[in-house]
């Protein structure tokens, strides 16, 4: 029943994002329209994949760092991605895929740095340090980014910030294909960690005695969730609140068992971002809202309600 409802919402969200748009396309021409086929459809699919990836990454990271308020972008990746993009612009690298690739490389560098910081004593991954190290690395990368932008004389550097919040404007079948090829591996790694993640909620030592290979699980979950987030930032910039709020909504309906929670967070995150992007494209047409504004407008009130629940419970 819950799954049917969620599936229906997801299908409706995808349909809506293909049917609705600022350009008037008659229903009878939907199948033949270049706008629908080359712009709306890939954008809808990309929104779904990115939203789903962020939902799963957020659910996994919240269990890993044992902090229900963790967001995938909290771990320094957005700062690294921004720095990568700005460096590419400063070096005058050109090409259609330069910015996404540079942002991805920057996110990976931040990931590696945070991971290294989190490996306390070279062996055990400490989730608390991951969290603090992520915030620190993100702030540091943002500082370097700002320094480069204010020192360089190329005006377009200032637009790197725009790019980082660009949302799904750059969606194409190419980016969809990239994500379709890339995302399944980290998604599968996270899904395979569903049971150990349940155990990890009790703490590391109890989880170990209940059969979880705790150190391996922590590494896998951190790397997989971060790789998903890095890919999301490369194809669609920083989109906040999906990875934070969706896991909580999924927990309300599906409980805390990651075996069902993770798939629900994927479908729910996908549906939420598809809806948010449709709203972003249509409500102020011909202008467009940054999709992050819409996810924040939806996400912050939900988040505030959840915060109340957490503090009361």
């Amino acid at each position, binding site marked *: 029943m819950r799954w049917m409802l969620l599936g229906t919402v997801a299908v409706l969200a995808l349909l809506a994002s293909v049917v609705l748009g600022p350009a008037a396309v008659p229903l009878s021409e939907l199948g033949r329209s270049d706008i629908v086929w080359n712009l709306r459809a890939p954008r809808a699919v990309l929104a779904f994949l990115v939203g789903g990836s962020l939902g799963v990454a957020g659910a996994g990271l919240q*269990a890993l760092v*044992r902090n*229900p308020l963790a967001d995938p972008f909290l771990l320094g990746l957005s700062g690294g991605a921004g720095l990568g993009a700005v460096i590419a612009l400063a070096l005058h690298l050109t090409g259609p895929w330069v910015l996404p690739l540079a942002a991805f490389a920057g996110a990976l560098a931040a990931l590696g740095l945070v991971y290294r910081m989190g490996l306390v*004593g070279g062996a055990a991954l400490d989730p608390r340090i991951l969290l603090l190290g992520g915030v620190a690395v993100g702030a540091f990368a943002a500082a370097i980014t700002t320094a480069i932008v204010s020192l360089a004389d190329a005006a377009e550097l200032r637009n790197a910030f725009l790019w980082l919040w660009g949302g799904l404007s750059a969606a194409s079948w190419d980016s969809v294909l990239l994500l379709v090829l890339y995302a399944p591996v980290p998604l599968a790694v996270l899904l*395979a960690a569903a*049971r150990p993640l*349940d*155990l990890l*909620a*009790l*703490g590391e*030592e*109890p989880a*170990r*005695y*209940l*059969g*979880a*290979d*705790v150190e391996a699980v922590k590494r896998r979950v951190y790397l997989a969730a971060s790789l998903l987030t890095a890919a999301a930032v490369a194809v669609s910039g920083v989109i906040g609140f999906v990875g934070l709020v969706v896991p909580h909504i999924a*927990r309300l309906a599906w*409980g*805390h*068992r990651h*075996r069902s929670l993770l798939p629900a967070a994927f479908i729910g995150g996908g549906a939420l971002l598809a809806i948010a992007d449709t709203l972003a494209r249509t409500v102020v047409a011909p202008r467009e809202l940054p999709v992050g504004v819409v996810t924040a407008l939806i996400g912050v009130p939900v988040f505030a309600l959840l915060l109340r629940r957490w503090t009361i*419970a």
Partner: protein
Amino acid sequence: MSAASPILRMRDVRYRYPGASQDALAGVSLTVGPGEFHAVLGPNGSGKTTLVRLALGALIPAGGTSEILERPARAWPRQELARVVGVVPQREDNLFPQRVRETVLLGRYPHLSLWGKERPEDHAAIERALAACDATQLADRWVWTLSGGEYQRVRVARALAQEPRLLVLDEPAVSLDLRHEMALFELVRGLVDRVGLGVLMITHDLNLAARYADTVLLLSEGRPVAAGAPADVLTRETVERVFSWPVTMQSVDGRPQMVPLRQPKEPVA
């Protein structure tokens, strides 16, 4: 039953934490077989929890061996080990609110495949574990609404749901009142006698250990002071030396019971 090979066997185990100047544990040997209740006693900081970690392969001994079913504890894959040994750790906290049946279900995880759903036998094991711990009526309660005693019973039920051959309990009676404390020890003793479970219990409660355990090991500053039947180990001299407090010993049901005296007359060596 006592003739069966031991489940846990530790021989002359030694361990030192990285950077520490002396061994946290040294010269410790013990065995726990099926149907045996073994208690490890000692004051705070005597190395009891280190001993549990070594026994379960969470730490690697610097000397000696720690084996479970004749295989080094460290060599066991965690999931396989969790089908043989169930643990009630001293501390845990639930990140997310959970119902009792859900938390007991976690005890079945070692028996499930990566993606497989729980099978009927898993649900049967959960119900058996709940019944064994007199917790069936708690099954649908939220964990955070339980009293301390109820929560301990649920945690023992979760360890039983693992269907282990050895049950390890680390200070299970801390913060329990008299009734719940006694009920917990009766429960554990009953499991030992009825289903032949081996039990390794860490506690600093001498009297309860003396009443219920078959054998006790007394630790002091990481060294074994005495081991054997409670009546042989828990003599007045030994207890006073290890706990640095004058006591008098009595006997109840043929087991030694310790009563601490007021105000030391003179420092005890």
